[in-house]
């Protein structure tokens, strides 16, 4: 299980990487392996507002569809359009090429409630 040390994690298995006031968000290695082969990612629209712990989009695997929650609140400033043609990037490279969206963080303190790598490892263990 790949759980990068520098990221923060939500209980619904999304990861967050903070760059300035922008949160880059994707789903964890654990989440992608549980879902199996991902066939479609329904991306949110840029300009929309993401609400903490609420669905921003969906991820469709062969046998199931799962909501993709935003771990932070704020405006969605960019989505990973590469996933439209190649959703399997979420399977093969969930932390780099398989990122899903970027959110301009409205309240940085929301990140404090997320788990660090160590806590997340225990959480999924």
């Amino acid at each position, binding site marked *: 299980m790949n759980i990068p040390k520098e990221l923060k994690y939500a209980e619904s298995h999304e990861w967050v990487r903070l760059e300035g006031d922008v949160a880059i968000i994707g789903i964890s290695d654990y989440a992608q392996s549980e879902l199996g082969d991902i066939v*479609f990612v*329904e991306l949110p629209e840029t300009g929309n507002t993401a609400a903490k712990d609420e669905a921003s989009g969906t991820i*469709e*695997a*062969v*046998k*199931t*569809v799962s*909501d993709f929650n935003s771990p932070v609140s704020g405006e969605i400033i960019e989505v990973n359009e590469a996933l439209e043609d190649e959703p399997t990037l979420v399977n093969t490279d969930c932390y780099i090429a398989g990122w899903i969206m970027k959110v301009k963080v409205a309240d940085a303190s929301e990140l404090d409630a997320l788990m660090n790598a160590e806590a997340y490892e225990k959480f999924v263990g």
Partner: protein
Amino acid sequence: MPYLPHGNDDIKQMLKKIGVDRFEDLLKNIPEVLKGDVSLDLPGALSELEIQQEMHALLAQNTACHQTISFLGAGAYDHFIPTVVDFIISRPEFSTAYTPYQAEVSQGTLQAMYEFQSLICELTGMDVSNASMYDAATAMTEAILMAKNIKRKKNDFILSSAIHPLYRMTMETYARSWDLNIIDCPLKDDRTDLAALEELITENTAAVVVQSPNFFGCIEDTASFSEAAHKHDALFIQGVDPISLAILKTPGDVDADIAFGEGQSLGNHLNFGGPYLGLFTAKQEYVRKMPGRIAGMTEDTDGNRGYVLTLQTREQHIRREKATSNICSNEALCALAATVYLALMGRSGLKQVAELCVQKAHYLQQKICELPGYSTANSAPFFKEFVIQTPFPAKEIIQKAVDQAIYAGIDLGTYFPERKNQLLIAVTEKRTKEELDKFVEFLANL
């Protein structure tokens, strides 16, 4: 596979296995106050012979369409059904199959769905078809809910007043919990009034819904409604009669976003009102918002052709309350009947059916209008169904016709009180010239 009832010995064995003495013990967790009196006042058991006699006596009370000259329509039509259709759908592999939850082991069922979808796409000119829905009423409702999911920020739905009133009632039952703003578009000469629609349509219009041929049998100018809807970034949803598509413009031709229809006409008997067959198609770009399931064709690891459920992950048994639809089931056996029917008819056969309907319907309409007191209720073009203005209430004509083994049509007063002197008459390819003339003669002698 035969039906295998369990006898007393089987029941005893099962109860013993799970460690209870009597069936009633299984119910002991239900409080007495909730149980009520379940003793049923049923007659004693009958022998097979007696059951047959009982059933025959019950059957004899029906007057089926084939025992009459039927002009009944309004969404349920007496078209010819080749014997092969019933022969194939009666095969136990199809007639006893339940919905394929372990889809890939049911290759035959999946292939039937795939063929059905392919034929419906070809017929409607639309990109994708699902594996079917219950009937046109639920299909129209699902189309509206799908449009709501696509145009989330908009909430106005403009519905033609010439949509089947029963479809509309079904939609209203669903819409109660969706808070949709339903707006009626008035009619002009029994067709949806384009000028009125253009007044009603705004930036808040999510979809425009028109049925063609409409409830009164009239062919609508679907291209103009589609254009008007798209000008305001609204979806255009069209209801269809699948038989008519053999000769009329398809929803695909007019750039419809979603098309629905009643598939009973395609190889399904009237069945006393059901089960029927909902047709549901859409543009490719909306496929993931579609209700129901889609079967697809693929290759296995050895390169053999195989079928899979390519889209079902948004259904209720997987998505629960977040499913795209309330309907998980499809009408597989009715869809198979439609598939066999369409495959048998082929492009030219279906066209012939449609042309016969048009010719015979127009012949009858003309003959009736020559009778004193009778006239057309509108001047709109029609396919196989039309409205006649009658000199006395349509209800009385219908009652008198029954005595002569004629089902004269539908009394429009049932749905619209102001139309009680209007008779909705459907003519399929099954009606002979002699039958049409007999009906005209009956009316002349009233």
